[in-house]
């Protein structure tokens, strides 16, 4: 009979263990301990590894609007995805921003004593607003939490188009096409 406690930091941890079959439990800030899978592990005569998953019960609602606070005019479409702190590695699938500016992330971890820090990147917004640039950081401290993200309205831009050879002569009819993000 042997017992081992293995510290997991940023998703991994190691321990020297005797050969045998063990029952496994987890203690993880922000997670439901009963959701651990699998709950047994067999250590062999040589070095080995095991992969476990655990699930959480928090619900995070991100609201995208023009003020980044309650009451602002919401965007009407778009998408957002969970990422790492740098915003480069994406986790899970992108969540749609609905007509009221809301994107709901279910089963996210949270911690009342030590908030669980989550990161998101907005992938798209509607035609009338600018995308939030950068990583959205959320300190998830309760089971149901709402956070606001600003999407500023697009600003009107004025353009003039004149003849290059006759200074000041406006082009009677033309189209300027802008390509970019």
């Amino acid at each position, binding site marked *: *009979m*042997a*017992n*081992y*406690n*293995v*510290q*997991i*930091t*940023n*998703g*991994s*941890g*190691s*321990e*020297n*263990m*005797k*050969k*045998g*079959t*063990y*029952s*496994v*439990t*987890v*203690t*993880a*800030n922000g*997670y439901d301990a009963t*959701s651990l*899978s699998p709950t047994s*592990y067999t*250590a*062999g*005569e*040589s*070095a*080995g*590894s*095991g*992969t*476990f*998953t*655990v*699930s*959480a019960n928090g619900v995070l609602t991100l609201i995208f609007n023009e003020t980044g606070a309650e009451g602002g005019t919401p965007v009407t479409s778009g998408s957002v995805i*969970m990422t*790492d702190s740098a915003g480069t*590695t994406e*986790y*899970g699938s992108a969540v749609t921003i609905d007509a009221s500016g809301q994107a709901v992330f*279910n*089963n*996210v*971890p949270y911690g009342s004593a030590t908030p*669980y*820090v989550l990161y998101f990147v907005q992938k798209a917004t509607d035609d009338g607003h600018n995308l939030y640039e950068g990583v959205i950081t959320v300190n998830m401290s309760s089971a149901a939490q709402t956070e606001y993200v600003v999407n500023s309205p697009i600003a009107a831009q004025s353009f003039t188009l004149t003849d290059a050879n006759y200074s000041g002569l406006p082009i009677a009819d033309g189209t300027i096409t802008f390509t970019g993000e």
Partner: protein
Amino acid sequence: MRVRLEFTVSHAALPALITVRSFGGRLILYGKVRRRRNVLCFCTESRNLIVTVRPFSYDFYEKSYFIKLGRCPCADIRLHFDFAERYPAETLQTFYLTDLNYGFPVEDAELSFSGG
């Protein structure tokens, strides 16, 4: 062929399981070994036997003897299963813990293992 098998097992390795097989792998007999000194008597048509003692504890490797009986009508075998050597060391086990729904690595957790 009638066989009398007298064998001893290191006390630290008890209890254990003894199996007697033919060289072809056919099981002739098996039983739980609780005492250090033991005697088994059995009949077999096999001329070659593999006698194995596997301690229930994972601290020990199993040990086997390969025996050729020849053509005598009976055999008297005496064996000692020495389990002075335990497994040399624990082995390094690495664990990965990820979020079931999003697949990201769990930042801070403790996995507890009991059994063995």
